[in-house]
């Protein structure tokens, strides 16, 4: 398994406000809602991450731990006064533990309209096999 794989490249050099954050200083983040389904080929995961663009999404695999992290960008005027708020943090973060049957090197991820779709294929050995019975 790979140690640290970025499926989507993160552009940290752009003008995204980064407050010197490292992995050891977690900041308040929302847990995105997910749908997870297993098929014969692997696991499909959908995560709601509204406002997160491709550049602000990070997918990391460390050992058997899969972490998705995103920073939503919402353009509002600077002098805005909040009247009602249901979403209090623009950060999304969620971690999952991957089964050994999965192959994290072949994760495919797409982001569309704020929904992250990931397909984590099963390793060849873990896929169900059909064994033909020969009549002797």
């Amino acid at each position, binding site marked *: 398994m790979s140690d640290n794989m970025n499926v989507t490249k993160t552009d940290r050099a752009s003008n995204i406000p980064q407050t010197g954050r490292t992995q050891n200083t977690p900041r308040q983040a929302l847990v995105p809602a997910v749908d997870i389904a*297993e*098929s014969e080929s692997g696991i499909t995961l959908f995560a709601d991450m*509204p*406002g997160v663009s491709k550049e602000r999404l990070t997918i990391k695999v460390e050992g058997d731990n899969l972490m998705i992290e995103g920073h939503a960008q919402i353009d509002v005027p600077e002098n805005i006064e909040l009247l*009602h708020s249901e979403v209090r943090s623009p950060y999304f973060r969620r971690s999952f533990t991957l089964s050994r049957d999965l192959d994290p090197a072949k994760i495919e991820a797409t982001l569309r309209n704020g929904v992250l779709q990931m397909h984590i294929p099963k390793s060849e050995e873990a896929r169900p096999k059909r064994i033909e019975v020969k009549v002797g």
Partner: protein
Amino acid sequence: MFSTFPAAGSLFPELTRLQQQLEEFFQPAGVAGIRSLAWGAFPAVNVGSTTDSVEVIAFAPGIDPNEIEITVDRGLLSLSGERRGDPQGQQGANTYAQERFTGKFRRVISLPEDADPAKVEAKFRDGVLHVTLAKRESSKPRQISVS
């Protein structure tokens, strides 16, 4: 948009928020909890105002922007539409988690009185719907010069 100051509003959203904050506090960061973002109505809505406009932000991921119906009627902004389930998710033999909202939704937001229903703009990007309503000219702060 995401200020740390408490929002002016009724008590119950604040209590819900307090509950959520407590849950976040007792839950290690990044670890999936029982509750996720889908704890409230869909789509989640933030409303803010500036001196010139009223801004409504609806967090509606996975929705075709052409299928959102936005209406303003007598001071009420209404957002409605439908979020369909993902076909690939249904084909899966086993479903492990199904937290995301599916189905029809409708949210009605009471607008501040000074919002002008004739000047509405709506933008959609990355699953976030941003509706901007201009404020009426008469309600904007004016400086009166002394003659």
